[in-house]
């Protein structure tokens, strides 16, 4: 009965649907989603642009042009009076650049009286050849009088030209390499006597005024010392402070002040820590000015709030049942914390520490103020010797104008980013591996 009734009811006029602007609102909804996607894309686009620009500028820093030369260690040039048995200084101060120049002249077929040709040789190979040949001779004086094949670094300008970074189309007067030098370079390359070699010097050399003999060795060691100091100082003090605040502190005024302080210190600009380090560690305590020890102490103070906040979160995540069980079995509060809670919170503490260390590795501003902008050519033997740090080295190279320094600076940024990425990935992997779901 019902179905038939419904089917034969006269058609009532359909009520007009009220216009609630559905189309407009759905269009607004679609636009909103597009805005969101655009915002995320802009962020990722900038990230990609930065990484791209850094990598394209820097990857060529990892190899260095070298020339394969047969060098005759001529006794008449190195030790003309035959005094090397009595005076060790003779081998150290001999005229090694002359040997290199003669070898290069012979290789390129320039006669020894061709003044113009010899003048063009200047600036073809690096001035660091003096140190290289000197080290060969002082290590093995029997090499005198013989001829050895040596790979000698090319100078920075030739290196840039070899890598195609110099525009060879502009007139000769407007560029750093002459046409004759370019012709020699091409000839040597075709003969296989000039090639790019992996630039171990980037990792081992100290500071230098020439790009081809400068490297990050001192900066890497300095950063390593500072990271060690931060680890040794900030981790125990930070964990101890967190344990006190989380487990033992009474709820009084002093505890409030300490907590507010720690939250504040986490947000203080890093340059203020640099000023603190300058006033207290360098002026008041008299620590040596460019030493890793001062930088390490400043970075410790900066990393402490980060570690404290991460450790507190890790300690708070341990469920109360563990506390209760330990206390119920007769442990004292201290025993509960140190023998039961702390081991369970260890993964979180570790992750927080690694992230804090990664932040400290990338900090530049406080180190600038305590004098780590220094030209340090020798490796620091102890943390009290002058050193520099990775980001500060990048900053110093950024202030140089030569093209080869720009390339090295970008190479150093790549190395810094690789270190940081390794630390962050370690932290993430450790967190995933040891994370416990209570």
């Amino acid at each position, binding site marked *: 009965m019902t179905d038939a009734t419904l089917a034969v009811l006269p058609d009532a006029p359909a009520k007009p649907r009220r216009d609630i602007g559905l189309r407009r609102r759905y269009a607004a909804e679609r636009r909103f*989603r597009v805005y969101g996607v655009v915002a995320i894309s802009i962020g990722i686009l900038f990230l990609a642009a*930065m990484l791209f620009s850094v990598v394209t500028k820097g990857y060529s820093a990892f190899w260095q042009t070298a020339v394969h030369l047969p060098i005759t260690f001529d006794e008449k040039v190195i030790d003309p009076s035959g005094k090397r048995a009595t005076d060790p200084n003779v081998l150290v101060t001999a005229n090694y650049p002359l040997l290199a120049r003669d070898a290069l002249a012979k290789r390129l077929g320039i006669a020894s009286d061709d003044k113009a040709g010899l003048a063009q040789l200047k600036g073809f190979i690096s001035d660091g050849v003096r140190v290289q040949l000197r080290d060969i001779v002082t290590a093995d004086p029997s090499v005198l009088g013989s001829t050895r094949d040596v790979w000698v670094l090319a100078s920075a300008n030739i290196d840039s030209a070899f890598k195609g970074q110099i525009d060879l189309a502009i007139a000769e007067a407007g560029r750093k390499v002459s046409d004759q030098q370019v012709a020699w370079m091409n000839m040597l390359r075709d003969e296989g006597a000039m090639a790019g070699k992996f630039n171990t010097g980037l990792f081992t050399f100290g500071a230098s005024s020439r790009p081809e003999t400068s490297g990050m060795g001192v900066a890497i060691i300095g950063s390593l010392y500072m990271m060690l100091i931060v680890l040794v100082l900030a981790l*125990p003090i930070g964990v101890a402070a967190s344990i006190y605040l989380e487990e033992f502190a009474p709820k009084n005024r002093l505890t409030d002040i300490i907590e507010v302080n720690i939250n504040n210190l986490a947000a203080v600009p890093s*340059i203020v820590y640099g000023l603190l380090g300058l006033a207290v560690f360098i002026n008041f305590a008299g620590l040596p000015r460019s030493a890793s020890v001062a930088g390490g102490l400043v970075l410790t103070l900066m990393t402490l709030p980060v570690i404290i906040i991460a450790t507190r979160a890790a300690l708070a995540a341990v469920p109360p049942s563990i506390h209760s069980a330990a206390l119920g079995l007769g442990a004292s509060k201290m025993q509960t914390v140190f023998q039961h809670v702390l081991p369970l919170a260890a993964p979180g503490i570790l992750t927080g520490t690694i992230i804090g260390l990664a932040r400290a590795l990338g900090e*530049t501003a406080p180190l600038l103020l305590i004098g780590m902008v220094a030209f340090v050519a020798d490796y620091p033997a102890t943390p009290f010797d002058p050193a520099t740090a990775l980001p500060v080295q990048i900053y110093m190279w*950024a202030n140089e104008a030569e093209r080869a320094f720009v390339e090295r*600076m970008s190479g150093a940024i790549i190395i810094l980013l690789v270190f940081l990425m390794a630390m962050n990935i370690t932290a993430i992997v450790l967190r995933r591996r040891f994370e416990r779901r209570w």
Partner: protein
Amino acid sequence: MPLVTVLAIVLAIAAAAYLVARNRAARHVSGTIKQHSRNHYHGWWAALLAAVPAILFLVVWTIGTSVYLEQRIAGQLSAHAGAATIAGQSLQLSLVKSLAGGIRLLQDNGVTTIPGTFEELQPLLSAQGVALASDTQDYMIAMARDANAAADAAGLVGGMLAILLALAGAATGVHQVEPRARARNRVERLVLWALFGSSMVAILTTVGIILSMLFETIHFFREVPPLSFFFSTVWDPRFAAAGSEGSVGQFGLIPLLAGTLYISLVALLVAVPIGLMSAVYMAEYATSRMRSIVKPALELLAGIPTIVYGIFALVTLGPILRDLSAALTGGTPFIQAQSVFTAGLVMGIMLIPVVSSLSDDIITAVPRALRDGSLGLGATRSETIRKVILPAALPGIVGAILLTASRAIGETMIVVLAAGVAANLTLNPFEAMTTITVKIVNQLTGDLEFNSPQTLVAFALGITLFLVTLIMNIAALYVVRKYREQYE
């Protein structure tokens, strides 16, 4: 006696005390009275009793003797040479100290007779690699030797006393071992004090920051009146030799503060819309697969050191913007290579992940009931977000913006490389302006003596910066706490 040897002896005594006490406690285990603490607590109590007083004493003694020796040398110098300028006195003091160090080095290397005049001494010292100023006086040699002798005597006495203290502590600790002794409580109380001391380091740091900058700022305000520092619109430090007239220069904060605020404003205009929209999209619309790609990417952006951003601005973005503006006007670029716009843009990029992660936490904290209620009444998702969720999250978002602004104000490396060093006061964002942080770095990385106003102004700027960021952080906390809705 060198400090390291004394320290090693004290630690050895402590280790021996641990072993003796622990073994002594172990012998009581089978007795009739139940032992209160485990054996190793007795051991630790003896070791701590041996080590801690001795080490504290050594610290106090070392600091005390070095202060005493300095006073002694200064007294001898002023008695001998008469009144000199403060700089002259400190120079003489450091000369005597270097002489003392050099003579000690010579004696360590076997030189038995030290000549009495400087001409004979200098070649010996240079052979050891110690270079001294040529105006070192002969009487200073005698003073240096006297100082060395006094230091040696003090070291010997202090070392002996420390070892005696350690032995006394060890003996007391071992003597106190008996079954009823509450060794665990004593050890735990000491550990508690150590934990408390560690948490005081935070307060010490804040106090240190404020005091150290305050002292230097007070020195600065003795030479430059505070009103002219805070309200002058000219920044012109005029580096000149100390002591020459007319070399004070003008130190006005206003152009630096204006630059800081302007660049931070541009940075926030870039970072807040993009960061907020990304956070909203990720919280509401994104699939978990997209979240697992985008969240790590944003974290990567956050982990890049600021110097890399600065170099990106200096080497890549600055020239691009300049050439772009030159192409737009067909000739002269209106965007400088180092300008407020460049620095603000790059700083904004750096702050996007900060805003995004802070807002993400806040938006996901809004309870589902509000969201579901709005959707149930027929609102579209974007309307829900715009009219229900964002207003509910507004206090938190305002707090996040304030925190981001305080980070932007304190940022150094990006502005050092991307903004200029010219203290300009202009409204044109395409010109160069400089900030407080750039000037702090500039004033302190030159070769200036420490007490000139040019260097001290850096501390005045630093304390201003610290106070401004402190006020913003406290304001952020206050806003969040006061206006936050308490949801059950």
